[in-house]
């Protein structure tokens, strides 16, 4: 009765509390709360393992606790929808959930149990089949297929990944990781050979081994860690075990009661032993898991952290300082360089302006091409604009071969090479202008060092030397004429003293130039310096005169002497040209002789006779004396000629001529008119008797025997004569004909006699 009363009182109080306080209502939430556990292993297994824990919590806290085993995706969805109240998951998944929504915080951290040893740490296991001899250490996992439960697994993904990256392997980038959902599948995949290696959390292998004893021999753990007191094999460093987390919507009282129930669990309690735990400890510090995810850039830290300038400044102060100093130095240097460059550009521009405005032709050559030229240069070559020149080589405006025999382009190359070495070169060059005329220039090339170019440009200036070259050419020709002329040439000063002579002068006069220079030139003896006076007055004198060579030989010279005046009409020089005409004169003389004398006898011929007769007739008239014209014909000449030959005939004629000549006086003239006919002029004849006595002597001299061709021959002549003047006017021909007629008369009278002309002879 009392019991029942007490019971009913209690019930009434409870009812009161329930109706009065919403808190109390929550405390006894009739549908209870849900604890979700991550399905890191097969769902059924976990369901079985965690059922005792849930039952314990329900009874210890007085709040019905339901168990849900969820995979990560389902758990994340359930959390987002407040579909669960508490959850137990791995730290990496927890961090992801925490980043997506607010949580109350970690209530407790799992303490795992393994055969009496407890740990609050979890790590990763990297393993492969024991018979995979090719996989011995972490480095062997390069390019291998790897099985993992999923990205948001600490031991099954993140912890192994860090170790691999520390070993220098980036297995993520290779994309050879297969996500299998839970640890058991990873183990199966490795055993089956579907993957080369697997990532799982610590403890799983040991648990599986319980049911499959041979498993330990089938698998090999890589990178084993020596961790004294840690109950499991591990390949990685360790992190805090799973957190148990309450969601914020869960009532505080419920949370407190669940927490106190959790902490009240002692090791060995059936509720925890079933789940493989020793119990729950106060929340661990999960910062190391955060650092891990951050280092691997995994969700929720897969975005680069926001770094402020202050962070950078704080962390990299010395670097920034160094970089700052370097930048400053760089700026200073570039400023300095910039100034230098500007100055150089200014100088360059000045140079260009100088070149452009310079009155002499100037150009700039870079490489081999013209890059710049001024107006004067363009005009010199008679082009329209600089564009016609720029970009071309100098050789393009030249003949293929320069006058000195060098090929233009080659000569230019040699010059440029010298200039680029730093020399200044000067040369003469012939250009061809646009109108095809030649122009001589003296070209000077000098190096110009410009900013930004390794080799110097070449400044080129031209000086037009065409006139000089032409003058030189004329001079050269003049010298050649002077030296090589056959005529002797001399130049004297204004006083007629020789300054220069040519070779012909020496040859003709027989004097060396040493003897001739400083002396007067050969001049006519009689006129002497009068010649110079004439030449000065009339500009030129010319004439022939006799002179002598140095060794005394006679010369006939033909001299032309010119006076040379300067711009102010002052006499400065005389120039004379003479030639040796001695031989010409001699020849002239011979020719003349041939025209007037008989070649056989040396006596004047008919022409000269006629001439002499004219002169004698004129003289006889002037001096009033008589002259006789005598015609002589040899008798019996032909038989001699026929009998003894022409040579004998000729000898006879010569002998006859000599004999007749001796009979005649000096002033008389004997001439051979042709054949065996002779004629003579006897001047100053004092009457017929005197003439006839002369003729008698003549006949006597002729009739003397003559030794001809080894024979003594006796010949005679028939002579006719006439006298002059006569009463009538007569010319020379008439006179000679009279004598001829008289000679015929004499022949008719019986030869060897003479006969005078008279009218009655006719």
């Amino acid at each position: 009765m009392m019991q029942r009363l007490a019971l009913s009182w209690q019930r009434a109080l409870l009812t009161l509390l329930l109706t009065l306080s919403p808190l109390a209502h929550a405390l006894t939430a009739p549908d209870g709360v849900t604890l979700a556990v991550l399905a890191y292993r097969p769902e059924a297994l976990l369901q079985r393992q965690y059922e005792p824990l849930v039952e314990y919590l329900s009874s210890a806290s007085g709040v019905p606790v339901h168990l849900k085993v969820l995979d990560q995706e389902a758990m994340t969805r359930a959390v987002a929808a407040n579909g669960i109240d508490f959850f137990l998951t791995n730290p990496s998944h927890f961090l992801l959930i925490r980043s997506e929504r607010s949580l109350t915080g970690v209530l407790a951290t799992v303490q795992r149990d393994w055969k009496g040893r407890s740990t609050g740490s979890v790590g990763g296991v990297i393993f492969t089949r024991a018979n995979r001899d090719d996989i011995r250490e972490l480095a062997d996992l390069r390019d291998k297929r790897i099985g993992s439960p999923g990205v948001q697994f600490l031991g099954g993904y993140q912890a192994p990944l860090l170790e691999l990256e520390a070993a220098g392997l980036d297995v993520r980038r290779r994309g050879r990781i297969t996500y299998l959902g839970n640890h058991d599948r990873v183990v199966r995949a490795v055993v089956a050979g579907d993957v080369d290696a697997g990532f799982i959390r610590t403890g799983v292998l040991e648990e599986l081994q319980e049911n499959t004893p041979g498993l330990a021999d089938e698998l090999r753990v890589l990178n084993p860690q020596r961790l004294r007191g840690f109950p499991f094999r591990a390949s990685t460093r360790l992190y805090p075990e799973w957190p148990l987390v309450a969601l914020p919507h869960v009532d505080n009282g419920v949370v407190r009661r669940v927490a106190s129930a959790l902490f009240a669990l002692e090791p060995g309690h059936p509720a925890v032993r079933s789940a493989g735990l020793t119990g729950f400890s106060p929340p661990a510090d999960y910062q190391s898991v955060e650092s891990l995810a951050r280092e691997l850039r995994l969700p929720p830290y897969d975005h680069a952290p926001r770094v402020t300038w202050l962070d950078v400044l704080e962390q990299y102060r010395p670097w920034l300082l160094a970089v700052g100093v370097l930048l400053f130095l760089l700026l200073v240097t570039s400023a300095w360089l910039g100034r230098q460059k500007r100055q150089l550009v200014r100088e360059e521009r000045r140079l260009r302006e100088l070149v452009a405005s310079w009155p002499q032709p100037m150009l700039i050559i870079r490489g081999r091409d013209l890059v710049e030229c001024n107006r004067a240069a363009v005009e010199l070559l008679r082009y329209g604009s600089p564009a016609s020149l720029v970009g071309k080589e100098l050789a393009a405006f030249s003949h293929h071969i320069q006058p000195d025999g060098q090929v233009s382009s080659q000569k230019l190359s040699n010059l440029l090479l010298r200039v680029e070495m730093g020399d200044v070169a000067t040369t003469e060059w012939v250009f061809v202008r646009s109108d095809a005329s030649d122009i001589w220039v003296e070209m000077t090339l000098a190096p110009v060092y410009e900013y930004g170019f390794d080799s110097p440009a070449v400044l080129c200036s031209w000086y037009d030397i065409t006139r000089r070259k032409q003058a030189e050419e004329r001079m050269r020709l003049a010298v050649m004429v002077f030296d090589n002329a056959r005529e002797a040439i001399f130049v004297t000063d204004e006083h007629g003293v020789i300054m220069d002579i040519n070779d012909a002068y020496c040859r003709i006069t027989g004097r060396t130039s040493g003897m001739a220079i400083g002396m007067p030139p050969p001049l006519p003896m009689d006129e002497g310096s009068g010649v110079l006076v004439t030449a000065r007055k009339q500009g030129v004198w010319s004439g022939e005169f006799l002179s002598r060579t140095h060794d005394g030989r006679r010369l006939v010279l033909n001299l032309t002497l010119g006076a040379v005046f300067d711009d102010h009409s002052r006499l400065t020089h005389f120039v004379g040209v003479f030639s040796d005409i001695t031989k010409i004169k001699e020849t002239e003389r011979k020719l003349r002789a041939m025209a007037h004398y008989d070649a056989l006898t040396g006596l004047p011929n008919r022409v000269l006779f006629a001439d002499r007769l004219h002169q004698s007739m004129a003289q006889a008239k002037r001096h009033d004396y008589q002259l006789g014209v005598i015609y002589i014909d040899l008798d019996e000449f032909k038989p001699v000629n026929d009998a003894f030959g022409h040579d004998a005939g000729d000898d006879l004629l010569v002998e006859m001529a000599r004999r007749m000549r001796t009979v005649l006086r000096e002033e008389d003239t004997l001439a051979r008119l042709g054949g065996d006919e002779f004629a003579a002029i006897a001047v100053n004849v004092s009457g017929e008797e005197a003439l006839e006595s002369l003729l008698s002597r003549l006949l006597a001299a002729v009739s003397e025997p003559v030794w001809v061709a080894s024979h003594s021959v006796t010949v005679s002549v028939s002579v006719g004569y006439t006298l002059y003047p006569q009463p009538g006017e007569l010319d020379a021909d008439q006179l000679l004909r009279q004598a001829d007629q008289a000679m015929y008369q004499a022949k008719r009278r019986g030869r060897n006699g003479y006969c005078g002309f008279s009218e009655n002879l006719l």
Partner: protein
Amino acid sequence: MHRRRFLQLSVSAALAPTLVGCFHREPLRMGVHPWIGYEPLYLTEEFGWLPDSVTLSRGFAARDSINGLLSGNLDGAALTIDEAVRVQAAGVPVRAVAVTDVSVGADMLMARPGIHSLEDLAGKSIGVELGSVSAVLLFAALQRAGLTADQVSLVDLPVNRHLQSWQLGQIDVSVCYEPTASRLKQAGAVGLFDSRQVPDTIFDLLVVTREAERRIPGAIEDLVRAHFRGLQHLVRNSHDAIYRVATRQQVDPEAVREALASVMLPELAANRRYLAPGGRVETVARELATVLEREGLIDRVPDVDELCSRDFLPGSLPS
């Protein structure tokens, strides 16, 4: 590492012919022996974070490190503050470049159950390894009790022989640390005093010789940076580090956890404070030098004015 490489590049670019040789010097030889405070260096080595400029010389006890420094075989060592003072007094000037840990209960004074207070120590035989940090705790305790060394009977005994002497009844009190302390406790000893009662006094330090400081300052920077990186792993990834330390020390992870609880591992900011000129390390060293000299444990009081240097502490640590 990156910074060093960058500086190397920029300097060698500027002074290529003269300075290149400097970077191929011998590495900094660092003596270490097993102690929870020195674990960060071991961890860096295990994870390959120790730069080439530093090599660890593993000893069994502090004696190995001290001998190495005195003989010139080492350029630096992990030592307690008193050991640093002793080395300095022995004529090898050293510089403390980092505080690895501060003892907060690691060093203990274990006594027979009848001894209830420090004052009761008078006349008792006290086992202590005078050449170790235990002496520091003992003198601090005696000072606290108003006693002098003359008033107690000091038995200079290596700490690994304390249990035996205790069991033989040769000592009433032991100045020791784990694991000897636990074993003594099992043998009936009770804790009378520990380093929690003398806060900020028993320091473990990374020291380098002045010679090394002059010759290879870059390597010292590398060393200190590596220590802090290892420390970060020890503290933040304790779920992992505990097992690794346990493996090396051949003890259970639980023991490592307890050992960690008995020391305070100062981070960068605390290091700056401790190593400041006139800071706590310098003050303690000066007091210690006086006591050690008075007790005849060192021949002369060394100059400790410039014992500490903050120059090698990194400006910041990666998070």
